[in-house]
């Protein structure tokens, strides 16, 4: 079998990828870099879940205005994920609670999960990539 045949055979495999976002936006580059990697992954037709826990929930805040700190506002990009067939967005309930936030404060429709549901979702993934 040639290398090319192996690649063709491999191209049909769909794995479950979880992108775990745990950092607030802007203070570090993790949130923006994570989003860019997710968009790249979308080109490979994988089963992608995007998860927001801890300070990662801040990435999805409505009303973000970055003009004053002169950095790119990438929060609108989360709304474009649907167009890349990335529709599985999950948020940790306890992380919202600890920050005085509710689902209504978020810029996109998400599924809010309790900690045991989030734990199970993580356990069933083939690959977890953390930002």
């Amino acid at each position, binding site marked *: 079998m040639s290398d090319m045949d192996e690649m063709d055979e491999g191209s049909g495999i769909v794995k479950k990828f979880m992108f775990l976002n745990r*950092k*607030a*936006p*802007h*203070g*570090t580059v993790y949130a923006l870099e994570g989003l860019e990697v997710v968009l790249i992954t979308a080109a490979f037709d994988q089963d992608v879940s995007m998860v927001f826990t*801890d*300070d990662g929930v*801040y990435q999805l*805040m*409505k*009303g*973000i*205005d*970055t*003009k*004053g*700190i002169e*950095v790119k*506002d990438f*929060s609108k990009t989360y709304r474009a994920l649907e167009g890349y067939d990335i529709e599985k967005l999950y948020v940790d309930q306890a992380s919202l609670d*600890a*920050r*005085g*936030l509710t689902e209504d*404060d978020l810029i996109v429709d998400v599924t809010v999960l309790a900690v045991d549901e989030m734990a199970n979702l993580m356990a069933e993934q083939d690959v977890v990539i953390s930002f």
Partner: protein
Amino acid sequence: MLHIVNKSATERSSLESCLRMATQGSAVLLIEDAVCAATNGNAAAAKIQAAAAGLKIYALGPDLAARGMTGRVLDGVNVVDYGGFVDLVAEHSNCQSWL
């Protein structure tokens, strides 16, 4: 003294260490991810409000706006712009950044 904190209180212990060390009448300026601590409902809110009795607490407005937090700032926290940041540095004889 002016204390400056730039790390999120729900991720690092910088704010807690700062509030432990800041003496009566000192100023604490929250910038970057640290501004989230000064918002309603945040897990660190009670600590900040308790500290505000003896310290002057400030948060940088542009960093609040960049995190969608402009309308959520705790009572007793003063919002400053970059000019206010410069004034705080100039007004205080020394400063400590809790990196």
